[in-house]
């Protein structure tokens, strides 16, 4: 049962992400992305990371997607007039390259690590994550705070109306 749910969710993720390739309407694309990200949250949950599953839903689906949709509306984008990528001339080389890349990764991953003996999923509790985050990774948290501050300043500057 567990396996079936996992592979099904994975299939949904991949299919939703693949749909972004071919849809015309940006809003549709954004919605597909949301689907992919939500499915990914489920995958996280299934892989024993409940905290991250929750965070994924909140941050991506909640916050980032809203940004996307907001921008699409502000720019008032119509369904694109561009030809579908599979019909345009230059699609073969990128697709081929991406396929090769994936195959390479696949081959390289093959049988690299011994699979663990026990067959159960160990849930990694949010508490453990928190302790790790504010224990050894404290400095990185501080650095991330600076990163967000820098991004904030940058965005504020670039979006200032007065100058334009």
């Amino acid at each position, binding site marked *: 049962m567990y396996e079936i749910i996992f592979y099904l969710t994975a299939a949904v993720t991949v299919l939703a992400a693949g749909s972004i390739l071919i849809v015309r309407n940006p809003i549709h694309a954004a919605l597909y992305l949301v689907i992919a990200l939500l499915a990914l949250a489920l995958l996280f949950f299934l892989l024993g990371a409940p905290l991250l599953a929750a965070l994924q839903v909140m941050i991506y689906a909640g916050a980032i997607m809203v940004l996307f949709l907001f921008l699409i509306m502000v720019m008032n984008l119509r369904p694109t007039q561009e030809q579908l990528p599979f019909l345009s001339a230059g699609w073969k080389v990128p697709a081929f390259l991406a396929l090769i890349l994936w195959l390479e990764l696949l081959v390289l991953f093959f049988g690299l690590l011994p699979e663990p003996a026990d067959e159960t999923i160990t849930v990694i509790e949010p508490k453990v994550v928190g302790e790790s985050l504010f224990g*050894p990774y*404290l*400095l*990185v948290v501080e650095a991330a705070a600076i990163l967000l501050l*820098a991004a904030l300043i940058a965005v504020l500057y670039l979006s200032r109306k007065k*100058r334009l």
Partner: protein
Amino acid sequence: MQAIDLINLGPFIILGLGGITVLGLGILPGHVSTRTLTAVTIIVLILGTAATILWKVPHEIDGILVFDRLSRLFIQLCMLGAIVITVLSLYYPPTQKEMREEYLSLILFTTLGMVLFISSQNLVMAFVGLEILSVPLFALIAWLPKQKHAIEGGIKYAMLAGIAAAFFLYGTTLAYVNSGSLNITALSQSLSDGHLPAIAVTLLLVGMGFKLALVPFHMWSPDIYQAAPAPVTALFASIAKAAVLIFLIRLLCLNLQPVWEALLPLLWILAVISMFAGNLLALFQQNIKRLLAYSSIAHIGYIFVALAAGNSLGRDAAIYYSLAYALMNLGAFAVVAALALSDKDRQSLEEYRGLGRQYPILGISMAISLLALAGLPPTAGFVAKLLAFGSAVEAGHFILAIIAVINTAIAFYYYLHILIIFFAEEKERTGQYIVPLPRGTLASVIVINSLIIGLGIFPELITTDFP
């Protein structure tokens, strides 16, 4: 966290708090002049440099950051570079009105990113450091949103840097898959099973190769060099690249010796294609910023010649070359920044005709920087090339050394071409906007060039005693 940790973290704390201080000063009700803000920024950077002197013994915090001679040297270099860039920006006409607390704090933050990246011992720290380094750059490149070029450069850089970051991150996660830890030293410990660490390092190399503008990840660099304001170009063409190089050297040469040795043929190929592509692209280029971008691609190729040697001399040569490279490019772009017109940089080579005669100090500085880039004694560029090619010869890579020397010869053509135009007799030049040369610019140009000469005369100061 102990007292010694705090002392060692001094430069980082100073930079972070300094950035916030500059921001705070900028929004005070009473108007604080840009000059004051710049002064505060420079003081913060000087304090940060001073704080590195407190590092006595090599020290490591929780496997996250490491403080040793290598990181100290390059942290000081980054701080110095940031000071120079701040001074240049203050007198850089196009951004003069746009330069307030945001700009200065972003400079400080991006410096913090470099400093973290240089001294990180942990891949997560490295990733976050890399992002702190590059996120402010997105904005700094597009700092003049009135100019279409700038916006285009900004968006291109943001997108492509995102891809590079994704590759870097993917490499990080694969390293984690390999060893269950994100520490660099741990990565080397479980090396026995397969070549997962090698794949991880390769993907990290893609991410870093983008930042370094290594062929074939170099395509962005001329466009962005052209788009960005010259001081910002100087920033990411010199010290940012040096920071990335040092992390690469720390990763490959200091911690993952076996992977390094396995990677040597790959580094060999990358070196050759980078040198050829960079020099060929630069050869007939007429836009000086693009030309310098291409030339720095070739220089990354020379550094990879040293890395491809795979011996300790190669490592030292790469370290020395990184330092020299940062200084030389800083010198060249500082002159470009100093000669900017009121609203944009001079781009075409023809716009520089005769300027070397008009501004003798800048002319001499440009000559020193370019001759150093071309690799003439007694500059640091000569010693760097000597060490790099010497290490290749020592490792038995004669063909590589010969290719490198041929490339140096090709490169000589375009460096001299710039200089000839720079010092050409000027034609009728009336009504030309003449840039008044401020003392700060001159001083920083002089400091950089005396360092180039000084390190060429005393290279032993740098090349001794790396772990």
